[in-house]
């Protein structure tokens, strides 16, 4: 269980998170939706302790990550896999080296075992024959797949996806969503997906939470969110220009 209590964060005096409260159950796939700049990515970075909040508490299986992960190396983060927005693949490494990297650095597995695991992980995300390519030689969709393979290679208990489908065409988007769902069933991790993809994300997530004005304004199953009476949620999922969400025209 991930428990977030009254989380607050400001940048240069500008409040981004004004008191986020959220509970993420073990094994569920929770999507966090919200406007661009609402603080969703900041929230994800706080979950792994690389942004420190101004106030509030985050408990990972009862352990306070903010207290534990004050230094740059923190063993609690070994429980996480993260797929960053742009993939965050290491430019100077090949695809194979990128995916193998967490295993080489964090485990004592033999090279042969690592090779097999990397090959399997890449096949699971539908990639073959790209091991020797560099990230710059890959398409956007392929980069996301490699990032997914790298995040899952250590079989983490919690996986965070920061806009894993941004900038992809609808077909690749759906295939990445399917990969996430399949991986979730296979590994049983607790997943948090930051997404703008409405309504596609409703097919992937077990629950959806909406972040607006620095707070979670609604959380529930996709059906509950679709049927919500909250005017903010209704405007966001309908993409309407009229409503309580201010739109710059």
């Amino acid at each position, binding site marked *: 269980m991930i428990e977030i209590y009254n989380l607050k964060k400001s940048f240069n005096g500008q409040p981004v998170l004004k008191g986020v409260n959220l509970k993420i159950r073990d094994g569920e796939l929770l999507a966090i939706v919200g406007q661009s700049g609402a603080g969703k990515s900041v929230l994800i*970075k706080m979950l792994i302790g690389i942004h420190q909040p101004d106030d509030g508490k985050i408990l990972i299986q009862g352990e306070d990550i903010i207290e534990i992960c004050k230094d*740059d190396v923190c063993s609690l983060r070994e429980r996480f896999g993260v797929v960053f927005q742009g993939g965050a693949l290491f430019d100077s490494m090949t695809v194979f080296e990128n995916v193998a990297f967490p295993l080489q650095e964090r485990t004592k597995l033999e090279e042969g075992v690592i090779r097999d695991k990397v090959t399997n992980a890449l096949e699971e995300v539908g990639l073959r024959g790209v091991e020797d390519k560099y990230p710059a030689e890959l398409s956007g969709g392929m980069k996301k797949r490699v990032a997914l393979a790298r995040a899952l290679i250590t079989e983490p208990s919690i996986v965070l996806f920061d806009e894993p489908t941004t900038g992809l065409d609808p077909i690749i988007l759906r295939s990445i969503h399917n990969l996430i769902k399949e991986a979730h069933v296979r590994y049983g991790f607790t997943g948090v997906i930051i997404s703008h993809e409405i309504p596609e994300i409703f097919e992937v997530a077990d629950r959806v939470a909406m972040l607006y004005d620095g707070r979670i304004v609604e959380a529930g199953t996709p059906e509950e969110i679709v049927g919500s009476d909250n005017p903010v949620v209704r405007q966001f999922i309908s993409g309407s220009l009229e409503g309580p969400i201010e739109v710059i025209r």
Partner: protein
Amino acid sequence: MAEDMTGQSVQGSTPELPKGGIIALVGILGSWALNELRTMGSMFIFLMRSLVLIFRPPFKIRLLIRQIMFFGNRSLLIVILTGLFAGMVLALQGYYTLMKFGSEALLGPAVALSLIRELGPVLSALMVTGRAGSALTAEIGIMRISEQIDALLAMALSPIKYLVVPNILAALIAFPLLSAIFDVVGIYGGWLIAVKLLGLSSGTYFSQMEQFVDMADVIMGLEKSLCFGLLVSWVCCYKGYYAGFGAKGVSKATTAAVVLSSVLVLVFDYLIGSFWL
């Protein structure tokens, strides 16, 4: 410390301009001084964390060799070229000056001492700063803005261990070697001018050098190179690690790294020189 990881706490905000003559000026100066003090503190903590991690296993030998290649490969040609011309200019100007006192025979030691004690370490450090140091800042800066540093943190690995420690160690090895190459090439550049152009005998040029150049001079040059290696790698890594947002942030960080490294090289050149004399 976690604030430092994301670069948030060290990004100084531009001070608001308070209204009213002297108070406004004092406000701006005070704000600037506080910001500079905060940056210096952050730089010092960054260096201390890096130095501590140098001695903590696992040791990244492969990365270290790659970074020695990075410094050496990128800077060797430019160091040879500047070394050659520095030696030639020294010989030319030195001959003209020494001739006035009838001491042309001392041209060899004059060139050698100037190069070994002063110009070798300083000019090679400045060349490496411009060539490899700027590239290092840009590389780490791009890793910052493309979340590669965050990816390392998310893997429970220390970015400083992977990105900073190998560069500091590599600079400590590469700077003295490049400086030595600069000295040797410079001495031969001086020889070209002294012997081939000005007609000094080769024996005079080298034998006098042997007599006047002590081991202490070589050690001084070596110490300067080590010091400059630490300074340049520290400043360039720090500026890249805390680069601001976007391409503009990286370009600002790169410029700041080159300027600050160059100034520090010259300042410490004077400080080390005055300490030894």
